[in-house]
């Protein structure tokens, strides 16, 4: 007898259709895109067969944009317009950037995030990153032969809110639907864990081009649980290049160099570093634009000696994460190595010395993050079957807090809290009759506001005048599954509510993003209005299908009046979705979402009850 299939709420009603989804590793040095095909994750190569895209973007005076290897070739000729390692600038102010004096760029110190003046105008790091992401999207769509339903984009685990938001904005500008921001070491753990069917406590040591992350995870059947994460958002392979570059300057007693000679020697330093991974000695030689010839022998042991302090620096966050997780080095069953910089033998040795076991290198350290992201994307898109089901539980890397009297930080959410997480804290007024309050949100571990990163400031107005200390202002922090924060506040005693959604002080305004989107579509010959309409129609279609299916199954959970209201809204949306006003469609979708929220809650609550009862029955 054929049985009718009923899907769970939230699951696709058409489970057999494979949805195209990708994982993107937006790296400091290289970017990659990967996908799962026929159950196997693989990196997608470009037309010449290269898996990596050097994370380099060059802007021409005629408005042309070159990326990857093409841009790399011009790096020393046109350093000012050829942006490398842009990830270091994401969500960062001018003061936050290490070794900025060696950057050839013409920085514009705009509030929140720096910008770069190029031949094609002033560019935000978000726009530069969007160029790289667009290349990844186009590569994926060409090679998979269709439009992507979504992407998982990876970020260093130690990225703060500003850096995460900047990455998400870049992906939107590149025309990607970001299903999730995923922490890089967590992505690596997924790839490793699913490949090796591992159980137990594992550590991920991720030394990339510009960032260092260290995460500890507990892997058990079907669950990847991050216990602690830590790192240094400004430490990576680039620093090893830079150290070698400085050493050569000292050895050769070179005078201050021109911008293009600096770029030349930094690029050379990287080649020498990579060569020394498998060779004991090499000559560092280059001809400068002044005619000076640089020629210095560098041995492996010279290089290890001059960069030893950088390796030692990575062990500080490593120990911190272990302490946070309440674990010892000996509790860790295996250490997965991620990032090209972990190829350096002295890094491998230092990790081995710490953990008392050789690290795991059986997955390509350049690809493992993209592969894990692809697996997560495949799962989120709803392509995996029930028997390969797994769940990921990640944490927030840095504490979140509010400024209180005297410039001190009151921590509201502690680092390493599992996300999503929400906390509310009550504050009161300082003066009689005070009607407004300024709220300053910061991120970091230090006691003083001035030592933490400022995320947002906003004013709560309309507090009813009362004596000092009588008002009750409840500030709620909500961190979502992407690790992104939303803050709202309201006064609770009087019943008067003032709720505010925070506009980040660091990031880009919605208006700015809309303009960038517009530019990028004009650039691509696309029409923003048509695109917006199509997006809303797709969303409406999904909504109609999904609410219709839910009603078919669980109409009984609704009161007659509720059911009637939902049906009216459904019909309204159906009519509007055939017309061409995208704003009206959006409005109708929002209305239907509002109306169906209690319905969704009841359905989910029932599924939870069934799960809990089922469990207790089984354990009887």
């Amino acid at each position, binding site marked *: 007898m054929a049985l009718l299939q009923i899907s769970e*709420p*939230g*699951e*696709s009603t058409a489970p057999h259709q494979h949805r195209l989804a990708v994982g993107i590793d937006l790296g400091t040095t290289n970017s990659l895109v990967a996908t799962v095909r026929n159950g196997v994750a693989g990196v997608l190569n470009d037309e010449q067969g290269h898996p990596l895209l050097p994370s380099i973007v060059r802007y021409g005076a005629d408005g042309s944009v070159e990326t990857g290897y093409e841009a790399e070739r011009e790096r020393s000729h046109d350093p000012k317009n050829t942006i490398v390692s842009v990830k270091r600038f994401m969500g960062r102010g001018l003061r936050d950037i290490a070794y900025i004096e060696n950057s050839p760029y013409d920085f514009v110190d705009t509030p929140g995030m720096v910008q770069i003046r190029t031949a094609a105008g002033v560019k935000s790091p978000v726009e530069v990153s969007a160029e790289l992401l667009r290349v990844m999207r186009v590569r994926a769509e060409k090679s998979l032969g269709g439009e992507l*339903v*979504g992407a998982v984009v990876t970020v260093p685990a130690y990225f703060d809110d500003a850096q995460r938001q900047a990455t998400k904005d870049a992906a939107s500008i590149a025309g990607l639907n970001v*299903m*999730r921001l995923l922490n890089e070491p967590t992505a690596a753990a997924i790839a490793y864990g699913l490949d090796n069917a591992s159980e137990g406590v594992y550590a991920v040591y991720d030394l990339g081009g510009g960032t260092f992350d260290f995460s500890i995870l507990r892997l058990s059947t*079907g*669950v990847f649980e991050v216990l602690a994460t830590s790192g240094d958002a400004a430490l990576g392979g680039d620093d090893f290049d830079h150290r070698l570059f400085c050493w050569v300057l000292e050895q050769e007693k070179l005078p201050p160099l021109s911008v293009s000679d600096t770029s030349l020697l930094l690029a050379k330093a990287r080649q020498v570093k990579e060569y020394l991974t498998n060779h004991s000695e090499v000559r560092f030689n280059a001809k400068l634009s002044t005619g000076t010839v640089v020629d210095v022998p560098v041995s492996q042991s010279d290089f290890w000696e001059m960069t030893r302090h950088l390796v030692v620096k990575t062990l*500080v966050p490593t*120990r*911190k994460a272990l*302490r946070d997780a309440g674990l010892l080095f000996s509790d860790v069953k295996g250490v997965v190595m991620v990032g090209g910089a972990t190829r350096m033998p002295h890094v491998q040795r230092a990790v081995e010395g710490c953990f008392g076991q050789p690290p795991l290198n059986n997955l390509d350290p350049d690809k493992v993050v993209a592969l894990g992201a692809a697996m997560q994307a495949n*799962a*989120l*898109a*709803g392509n995996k079957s029930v028997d390969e*089901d797994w*769940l*990921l*539980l990640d944490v927030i890397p840095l504490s979140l807090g509010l400024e209180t009297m005297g410039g001190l930080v009151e921590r509201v959410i502690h680092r390493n*809290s*599992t*996300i*999503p*997480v*929400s906390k509310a804290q009550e504050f009161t007024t300082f003066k009689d009759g005070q009607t407004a309050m300024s709220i300053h949100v910061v991120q970091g571990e230090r006691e003083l506001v001035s030592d933490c990163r400022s995320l947002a400031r906003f004013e709560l107005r309309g507090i009813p005048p009362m004596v000092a200390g009588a008002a009750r202002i409840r500030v709620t922090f*909500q961190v*979502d*599954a992407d690790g992104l924060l939303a803050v709202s506040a309201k006064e609770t005693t009087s019943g008067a509510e003032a709720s505010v959604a925070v506009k980040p002080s660091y990031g880009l305004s919605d208006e700015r993003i809309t303009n960038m989107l517009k530019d990028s579509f004009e650039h691509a010959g696309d029409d923003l209005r048509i695109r917006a309409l199509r997006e809303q129609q797709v969303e409406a279609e*999904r*909504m109609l299908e*999904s*609410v219709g299916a839910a009603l078919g199954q669980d109409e009984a959970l609704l009161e007659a009046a509720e059911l009637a209201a939902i049906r009216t809204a459904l019909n309204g949306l159906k009519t509007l979705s055939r017309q061409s006003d995208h704003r009206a469609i959006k409005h109708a*979708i*929002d209305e*239907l*979402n*509002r109306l*169906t*929220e209690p*319905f*969704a*809650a009841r359905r*989910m*609550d029932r*599924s*939870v009850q069934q*799960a*809990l*009862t089922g*469990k*207790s029955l089984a*354990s009887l």
Partner: protein
Amino acid sequence: MAQAKNHFEVLGVPVSFTVALDALDRAYRNLQSKVHPDRFVNATEAERRVAMQLATGANEAYQTLKHPLKRAIYLLEMRDIDVRSETSITMEPAFLMQQLEWRENIEDARAARNLGRLESLHDELIAEKRVRFSHLEKLFGSGAFQPACEAARQLLFIEKLEREIGDGIEEMDVA
């Protein structure tokens, strides 16, 4: 509504200080596999909002119940006993003395930058906690809630000392 449930109800475990950690782990994972936002990426916005609320609630419940001191404080709160602001009870003099001694030892070790000493103090506190938690379990078992509150308050001090040791170790690590 789900929001009105206490943490024990959220995870479907009995209201008690004595908790089987493996059962708690299983209940939490079971619940998250139903409500986590990753399960609702393609769902309607209403469903995604509900999923985020439920997953947030599951995390809060699990984090509170998993940690023995947080669990104790929460259980006492359910009986309207606020451990943190309980000023009616004075601290046992013997504990105050002991606490002062620990604090001095930590400060001395930090000043002398003696990492080994800090680590052994840390181990000492861990052992002390273990003894105290099993005592606390007995107090809860016999319904002695005021003594349990006193014991929990002392454990709050001990955990604060533990954090100070952690800070001290970190200082030496960074330098």
